[in-house]
């Protein structure tokens, strides 16, 4: 049986990601300037936005893996899709936790029906259904096809949900990350570094999860 960390490149990757994350957290806590009116609450954005980016990117991977699975009928793509769905959901949970933590001191309310946050919540609910239908499906082959189709539909629905929520209550203020690009380098560079670290960590997690799912599928085949 192939152990994930016995592979040299996986060891290097894991070590690098660990180091990057340590530097990232150090830079967020000590290296970034304090924004006067937000104080410590602002620092959560160095985690919140990269988590959202990784979560949505992961669901994009689910869609691509779904298309490839349906066209090539190769179960490798089903494992990629399932792994990406699991990790994407994990990051979306982080977004849904960190968003209200930031919003409470800044907006005075933990939840506001802001388009991005609402889209995240709706997408999270869709993926709850995704995991349920995969768990309650009958044959693995059919569950895989159902998952692939649902992954495509969910991602296509994202822009429509976002636009609908945006026009639904147009006067609701947007997240401040739209202005991130115009921030001074003291904020922008650590922010971009955090995005990079989260993306590197995401690919490591994805690789690890795909490895586990492959081992699981080999064991299931052997059991049969």
């Amino acid at each position, binding site marked *: 049986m192939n152990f994930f960390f016995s592979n040299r490149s996986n060891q290097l990757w894991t070590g690098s990601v660990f180091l990057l994350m340590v530097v990232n957290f150090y830079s967020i806590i000590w290296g970034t300037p304090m924004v006067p009116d937000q104080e410590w609450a602002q620092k959560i954005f160095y985690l919140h936005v990269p988590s959202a980016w990784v979560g949505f990117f992961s669901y994009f991977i689910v869609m691509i893996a779904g298309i490839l699975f349906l066209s090539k009928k190769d179960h490798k793509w089903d494992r990629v899709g399932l792994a990406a769905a699991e990790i994407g959901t994990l990051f979306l949970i982080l977004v849904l936790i960190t968003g209200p933590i930031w919003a409470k001191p800044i907006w005075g309310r933990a939840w506001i029906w802001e388009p991005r946050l609402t889209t995240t919540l709706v997408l999270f609910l869709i993926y709850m259904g995704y995991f349920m239908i995969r768990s309650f499906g009958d044959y693995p082959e059919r569950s895989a096809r159902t998952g692939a*189709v649902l992954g495509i539909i969910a991602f296509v629905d994202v822009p429509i949900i976002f636009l609908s929520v945006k026009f639904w209550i147009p006067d609701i203020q947007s997240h401040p990350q739209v202005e991130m690009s115009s921030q001074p380098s003291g904020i922008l560079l650590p922010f971009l570094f955090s995005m990079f670290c989260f993306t590197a960590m995401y690919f490591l997690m994805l690789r690890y999860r795909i490895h586990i799912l492959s081992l699981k599928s080999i064991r299931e085949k052997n059991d049969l």
Partner: protein
Amino acid sequence: MLAFLVKKELLMEFRAKESFLTMAAFSMVVIVSFSFSFNVSSGRFVEMTPGLFWVMVLFTSVLGLQRSFAYESEFDAFSMLLSAPVDRGLIFLAKWISGWIVLTLIVLIALIPFTLFLRFTIPTNPLVGIGIILLGNASIMCLGSFVSGLAMRSRLSNVLVPILLFPLLSPVVIASVKSTSGWMRGLSFSTWETWIFVLSSFIIIFGLLGYTLFNHITEE
């Protein structure tokens, strides 16, 4: 072939009358529950009626969707249907169109108790309202028929349909409520035309996706 499949779906529905009767009774129960839950005589209640109306439509549609594939899963009739030399995308279109017709009939009937019990005043241009109902119902049944087919062979399929469908339909609910509200308040079409665009886009996008992907979810 499509007309034949739609006819088959409608014949099955109107012979058994299971979905039709349960959906009609359920919509009535929902309306009465709304009457008990809210202060109907309050002036602010008028603002809530478009939302309540579409919540009723959404809940009612789920009953019909659960039955639409259940007929065929009994005695594995769906496998027989799949073995027929028919484009599987057409089966999806037939389910969608027949479900749309049945839901629209139910909603039009339910409008009577809705106006009576919830003091819902139909504006002077009812055809516009019917247009919104047709579009909203088409959107709900389009994705609903697809999701229902997706969940058909799962355990707990009855529970999974609403869990999967409601979040996916959130743009439809927002767009239908907003356009109904615009129509009821007599606002000019240009102020709520965006929502008609959202509904039409939804029907086109998910109609095409459903037609293309239905083949994959029905593979044996």
